[in-house]
């Protein structure tokens, strides 16, 4: 009994410690001295790895998500003879929720895990330590560009996701199922508001970018320098950041709907 209690206490202390360390780590990243001219090439390299290489999976997923919403929406709305309203169903559900969230989940799986594995392997093979030996700050050289690239590319990927998904829904609804194209776009335009729907979706995706890359670089930087530790860190990145995205999405939606 005492041992169980001790284990519980130990885990709680560990959890608090991890949260504290990750907070301090975030502060170190944010406050690290910016060197714009030296950072820019590193940043572009990372945007390529994190953003451009995530494009194929996100765009293909977007196309199919849009198409399936078009199909399901048409199937359901047809019962109420309201299939012309497919456009607003599609645009609202995608720009407000599905675009940012699914793009973030895919981003966590595709880019977050890669970031953790890369930084974790640098830790395991003592590259980060040798950088410090050469008086190169690994936070600035390794972590900062990756963190910034994640924050910058997440909203771009979410915007691309929404666009492609809406075209996917358009393809199924208008081209295949024969809804009137004019009604599709007009209903969409009259119900979607740029500030409330699209901008809020973009704000959400910026928050998701911060939380995913933060978790990914933290898990990579503080990984156990063993093969098992590295695999655990990668798994934790995907699990934690997916959960964090879904929970944060709920909180942000409450804030946004609550007239913020």
């Amino acid at each position, binding site marked *: 009994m005492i041992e169980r209690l001790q284990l519980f206490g130990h885990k709680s202390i560990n959890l608090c410690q991890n949260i504290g360390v990750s907070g301090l780590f975030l502060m170190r990243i944010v406050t690290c001295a910016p060197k714009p001219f030296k950072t820019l090439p590193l940043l572009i390299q990372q945007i390529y790895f994190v953003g451009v290489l995530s494009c194929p999976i996100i765009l293909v997923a977007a196309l199919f998500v849009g198409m399936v919403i078009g199909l399901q929406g048409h199937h359901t709305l047809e019962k109420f003879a309201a299939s012309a309203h497919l456009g607003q169903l599609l*645009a609202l559900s995608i720009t407000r929720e599905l675009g940012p969230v699914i793009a973030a989940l895919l981003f966590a799986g595709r880019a977050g895990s890669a970031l953790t594995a890369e930084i974790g392997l640098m830790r395991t093979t003592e590259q980060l330590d040798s950088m410090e030996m050469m008086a190169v700050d690994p936070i600035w050289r390794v972590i900062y560009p990756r963190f910034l690239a994640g924050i910058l590319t997440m909203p771009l990927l979410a915007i*691309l996701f929404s666009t492609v998904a809406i075209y996917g829904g358009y393809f199924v609804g208008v081209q295949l199922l024969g809804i009137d194209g004019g009604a599709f776009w007009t209903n969409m335009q009259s119900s979607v508001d740029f500030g409330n729907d699209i901008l809020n979706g973009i704000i959400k995706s910026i928050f998701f970018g911060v939380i995913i890359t933060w978790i990914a670089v933290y898990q990579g930087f503080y990984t156990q320098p063993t093969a098992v530790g590295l695999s655990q860190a990668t798994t934790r990145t995907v699990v934690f950041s997916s959960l964090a995205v879904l929970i944060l999405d709920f909180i942000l939606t409450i804030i946004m709907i609550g007239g913020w």
Partner: protein
Amino acid sequence: MHERRWVEVIVGCFVLLASAALIFLAVKVSGLVNFNDSDGYYLFADFANVGGLKVRAPVTIAGVRVGEVTQIDLEQDNFNARVTLLIHTDSTQLPVSETSARILTEGILGSNYISIVPGFSEFDDQNGTSYLQEGGQISLTQPALVLENIIGELIFNINS
């Protein structure tokens, strides 16, 4: 060096593509930038009840969209709803007399919109012009139909 240049080119394409997608979302999906938004003139109409009318609802004449609702607020003296309409094309001239505005519903699940029925155009000797100008008021209005009121009247009529 050569490879890094290609990386930069691809990243540039990526950012441009995302910007184009944002413009698409702004223009085509949300209708934020409507290119003939700026020209046109404003009219007012007082309604006893606007029902579910919303800002940016269409204003139509004979079913053709000619403008949109830009503002709905409550008048403090007589508690009517004052609706501000933006009529897009200056060429749409509405006679002062007999022009009426009604709040209708698109289909059974659709949203509310305003339908304007133009009156007869007559030349008025005293005022010179008889068309509604910027800031003019449509005096004849018909409020939105509220389903509960109709059912209430129906029951009242059946009972009496």
